């Protein structure tokens, strides 16, 4: 990737779009510090944010769903893993976990194993793990991948709520679906082109050769773009 230059502000909701292999996941890894840029740098406003105030929802469930952990353990891990290596669960941690469980509609599943959950429920558990630390920036890597249909619009509604508390950077193929909530776009294909407004024209898309999967729902405001030639 080269010529990547953009700023994420406090209440941004940025959709990162672009073809596979274009560098979308690389961009997230750079922000998370899992990869180091070969040139240039990534800076955080240290008053607002540090590495620990970034929430991350990976592309696929990377954890083994047959592993002996329950929903509470997994959501809690989002808090504990930041606290250093010797960690005990405090009553505040426990309270915070049950708040997140309520907020994400997972009540009653506190003790459930991951292999007992549906894809959408699993997604919410991992979202819970990402947001329990009250991040200032939430990174989502193709969250549409394993959301079940019944929860899908719910899930994006949830993101809109979360956007009141944190900036969101969402990697997605799912442009039609996200366009109602996303406020700005970053097109990634080796280079990054940042579009500050939510308006996105066919010409702009064509210029960067981003193949976009269009998903439209009757009740959700959407923009239909012409087919790429």
């Amino acid at each position, binding site marked *: 990737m080269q010529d990547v230059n953009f700023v994420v502000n406090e209440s941004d909701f940025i959709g990162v779009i672009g073809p596979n292999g274009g560098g979308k996941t690389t961009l997230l890894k750079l922000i*998370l*510090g*899992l990869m180091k840029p070969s040139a240039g740098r990534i800076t955080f406003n240290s008053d607002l944010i540090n*590495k*620990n105030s970034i929430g*991350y929802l*990976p592309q696929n469930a*990377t*954890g*083994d769903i047959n*592993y*002996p*952990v*329950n929903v509470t*353990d*997994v959501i809690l*891990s989002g808090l*504990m*893993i*930041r606290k250093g*290596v*010797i*960690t*005990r*669960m405090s009553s505040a941690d426990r309270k915070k976990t049950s708040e997140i469980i309520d907020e994400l509609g997972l009540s009653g599943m506190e003790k459930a*194993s991951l292999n007992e959950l549906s894809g959408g429920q699993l997604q919410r558990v991992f979202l819970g*793990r990402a947001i329990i630390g009250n991040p200032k920036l939430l990174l989502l890597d193709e969250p549409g991948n394993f959301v079940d249909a019944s929860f899908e619009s719910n899930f994006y509604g949830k993101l809109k709520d979360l956007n009141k508390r944190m900036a969101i950077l969402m990697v997605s193929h799912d442009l039609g679906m996200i366009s109602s909530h996303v406020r700005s776009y970053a097109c990634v294909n080796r280079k990054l082109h940042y579009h500050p407004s939510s308006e996105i024209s066919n010409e702009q898309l064509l210029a960067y050769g981003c193949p976009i999967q269009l998903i439209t729902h009757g009740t959700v405001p959407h923009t239909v773009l012409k087919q790429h030639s």
Partner: protein
Amino acid sequence: MEGSIFQYDFIVKGLLGAVFASITAGLAGTYIVSRKMVFLSGGITHASFGGIGIGYFAGFNPVVGAAIFGILSALGVEYLSVKHKIREDSAIGILWAFGMAIGIIFIYLTPGYSPNLMSYLFGSILTVTSADIIALGIMSVVLIAYFGIFYRTILYISFDESFARTYSSYVNIFKYITTALIALTIVLNIRMAGVILVLSLLTIPPNIAMLFTKVYSSIIIWSVVAGFVGTAAGYTISYFAGIPVGATIIFTLAVIWILMKIISRLITGLAKGQEKSGINNEEQTK
């Protein structure tokens, strides 16, 4: 008189051995079973036989040789798999046989007959020394402290390593330390159950526990209990029937596992049956 001292020694060794073996195997076993590292552990076990052979040949304690071989091969496989430079299963398969080959070559090169070879392959309480028991006791304390202090960190790293990596820079350190401790646990238990059977001492108890609980800490506790029952029963049977200890322990544990599997099936079957009849009743009342 001599007979009774011998008997007393056997019972004390057997009892302490059973306690420490089940504690170490329960903790290490829960980790390897839930992280799906059973095959890797098999590789470590058999590779350590190379160290036993070299120990015999060079005239130092074969357990020390086994420990060095076990830890180095374990760390080697972890290191290579972290770097993604190898096909892990192939590497383990090579390590497995290579260690055995080294062991056999050096034992054959050692002048004179090696009467204890069978005890390393199949385990024997008669050759277990007080030093072995003390080493296992220390290992039990170390493992309890390690898992007790770092419980959540170990749990979360082995559940989702790549997520843990986004927040913790200690992931590799913990993987290496835990793997080294597992290798050491395996090697120290080889005296009890032997190279060929020791893996089952680690893997059968957690599998018995997991039939009834899915909570990590409960799996550890019930693994230790199941391991102790199996080991103690194995000793007793072995003593009275005059058959090898290692084989008797593993046989006993496997029989317990099969019985528990049947029982857990019956329990879930009954629960489902009740649910079904409950639904039928509801339908009938409608």
